[in-house]
C-alpha cells in the first residue's frame, strides 16, 4: 500500500464551498464567461470586459476572452471570491463568474519507477501491438499536465521522450513559454501513454507512434487552475480539429466541481474528441472533477486504477463515474 500523501496547498489558495461542494480555489483570480451577444450591438467586447473589470476590486485582466467567451481576471487577494463571483454573475453580458478551482495531480507515487511496467502485460498490450502500434496521422494524444522533461535551453531531454517530430509543444499556461516540466508528473504520464518503444531505453509506452501535444497547467507543486485546464483543452481540441485529427486528451489531475471544467468537457465532447481523466487517488473518496463529468459526456472517460493482482488500488476513488 502506498503511503497516503498530503498534497500541500498551493500558495494563494483558500478552501471554500463552490457548487455545493468543498473546493480549493485561488484567492487572487476569478473566471468570467461572457455571453455571446444575441443581436448586433454597439457595445464592443472590450467595453463589456472593461466594465466587468471595473466592478472587481483591484481587478486586472489576466487573459482576454477566448473564442468560447471566457476571460480570467486578477483580483485583490483579500476579496471574498465566492461573494464576488455571485455578484458578477448578475451583471448583464455575463454568463457566469466563478472562482478558479485548484486541481492537483492524482497522487504521485514516491517511487519513480512505480509502474515498473506490470501494467502493460496486464492489459495484454503486447497482443494489441500486434495489430496496431499507434498511427502518426489522423490521431493525436494530448497531455494536459505539468509539462515534459526539457533542458533549460528548451530541448526535449528525456531519452524516451525526445523524438522532436512526435512532440508538439503547446502553451505553458503557468509560466509562459514552452511546457517544461518542473514537477515530474507530466513526464511520467507522457511516458506511460507514449514513450518511444523498441529502443532499448527505459520504459515502453502504450502507444508508440501517435503524436503528442503537450500543454502545461500544473505547476512545480503539482497544482493548477481550472481556467488553465480549460484553455489548454480548447487549444488542443482546436489544433486537432484544424488538422483533421481525433485527439485523446489525458488529464491525470482534478479537484472540485466548476462550470469552467464542465464546459471544457462539453467542448471536447461536442467536437467528438475524448478526455481521459483520473478518477482520483484519494483513497476511495468521491470521484474528482473533471472525471466525474463522465456521467454527463460520453467523450469523458473516468479512469480508476487496479493493482497488479487485480484488486482495486486502495488509493483509487470510487463512484458510478469510473470506467
Amino acid at each position, binding site marked *: 500500500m502506498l503511503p497516503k500523501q498530503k498534497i500541500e496547498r498551493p500558495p494563494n489558495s483558500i478552501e471554500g464551498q463552490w457548487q455545493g461542494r468543498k473546493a480549493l480555489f485561488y484567492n487572487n483570480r476569478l473566471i468570467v464567461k461572457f455571453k455571446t451577444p444575441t443581436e448586433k450591438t454597439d457595445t464592443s467586447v472590450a467595453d463589456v470586459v472593461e466594465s466587468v473589470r471595473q466592478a472587481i476590486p483591484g481587478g486586472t485582466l489576466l487573459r482576454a476572452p477566448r473564442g468560447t467567451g471566457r476571460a480570467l481576471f486578477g483580483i485583490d487577494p483579500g476579496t471574498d471570491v465566492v461573494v464576488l463571483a455571485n455578484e458578477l454573475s448578475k451583471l448583464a453580458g455575463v454568463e457566469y463568474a466563478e472562482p478558479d478551482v485548484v486541481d492537483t495531480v492524482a497522487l504521485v507515487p514516491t517511487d519513480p519507477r512505480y509502474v515498473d511496467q506490470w*501494467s502493460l502485460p496486464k*492489459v*495484454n498490450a503486447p*497482443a*494489441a501491438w500486434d495489430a496496431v502500434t499507434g498511427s502518426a496521422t489522423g490521431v493525436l494524444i494530448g497531455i494536459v499536465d505539468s509539462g515534459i522533461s526539457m533542458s533549460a535551453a528548451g530541448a526535449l531531454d528525456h531519452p524516451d521522450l525526445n523524438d522532436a517530430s512526435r512532440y508538439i509543444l503547446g502553451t505553458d499556461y503557468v509560466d509562459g513559454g514552452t511546457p517544461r516540466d518542473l514537477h515530474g508528473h507530466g513526464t511520467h504520464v507522457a511516458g506511460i501513454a507514449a514513450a518511444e518503444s523498441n529502443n532499448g531505453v527505459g520504459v515502453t509506452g502504450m502507444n508508440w507512434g501517435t503524436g503528442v501535444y503537450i500543454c502545461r497547467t500544473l505547476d512545480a507543486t503539482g497544482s493548477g487552475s481550472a481556467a488553465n485546464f480549460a484553455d489548454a483543452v480548447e487549444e488542443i481540441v482546436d489544433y486537432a480539429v484544424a488538422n483533421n485529427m481525433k485527439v485523446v486528451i489525458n488529464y491525470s489531475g482534478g479537484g472540485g466541481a466548476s462550470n469552467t471544467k464542465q464546459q471544457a468537457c462539453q467542448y471536447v*465532447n461536442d467536437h467528438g474528441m*475524448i478526455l481521459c481523466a483520473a478518477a482520483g487517488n484519494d483513497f476511495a473518496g468521491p470521484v474528482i472533477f473533471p472525471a466525474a463529468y463522465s456521467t454527463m459526456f460520453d467523450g469523458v472517460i473516468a479512469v480508476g486504477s487496479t493493482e497488479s493482482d487485480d484488486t482495486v488500488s486502495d488509493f483509487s476513488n470510487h463512484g458510478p463515474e469510473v470506467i
Partner: protein
Amino acid sequence: MATPLVTGLAALMWSRHPGFANTKIRQCLIDSALKLGPGSFDNAWGNGRVQADKAVHCGDLVFTQFTRLTVFTRFTRLTQFTIFTRFTPITRFTSLTSFTRFTPLTSFTRFTPLTSFTRFTRFTPFTEVFTRPPDWGTVPEPGPEWEAPVVRPFLRFANTVFEPDELMIGRFEELSGVASDLQSIGIDSLDQLAASSPSRLSSLLNYSAADGSRLVDLAQSLIRRLAGE
C-alpha cells in the same frame, strides 16, 4: 497512473478505426473490459479492467466462424456457375480449396466451380461477400423457383413415356433416334413393330447394311423394353 494507459490505448483504437465516433471508442473500452467486480458494474470496479488486445479489435468486422457461401442459380445442363466475391487488400483466406482461385488484391474475383456450389471460407476483417455482383440489380432473392430442375431424359414411343433404365444405359440417344425414325415411317405401335422384319425396316429407312443390323439390334432391344421384358 492508469489514466495515461487508457489514453494511449484510446489513441491506438482510433489509429485502427479512424472512423469511429468518440462514443464508439468509449463503448468499446467498456465492452472489452475484463469484469472483475460483482455484476457488470459497481462503483469500485467500474466496468472492469481494460484489455488492450480486445479493445483494439473491438468493432473489427469479423466472421469469426466459417462462413458458408452458397450460390443460388437457375441452371440447365449447359449452365456454368460463377461466384462473385469482393475482396479488399486486407482480406486473408485461411482455407482454400482446389477449385477456387483468389487474387485478393483485385476488387472482384471470379471463379467457376463445376462440381460444387457450396464452399467454406473463413473471412477476416473488411470482407464483403456477394454471391452475385452488386450491379445485377433487382434479381429476386433465392426461393423455390430458384431450385435446380432435374433434367430427366425420356423416350416416348407408342403413346408411352419410358424413362431411362438399365437396359438403355449408354444407348439412350440411339434408341431415341430409332423411335423417331420408326415413327417417321408410320410405325408407332408395338404390334406394327413386331410385324416388321429388320430388313424391311432397314430398307424403308435407307439404312446401310451395317446400320440395318444395328437397327435390328436396337429394335429388338426396344421391343423387349416396350414389351416389359
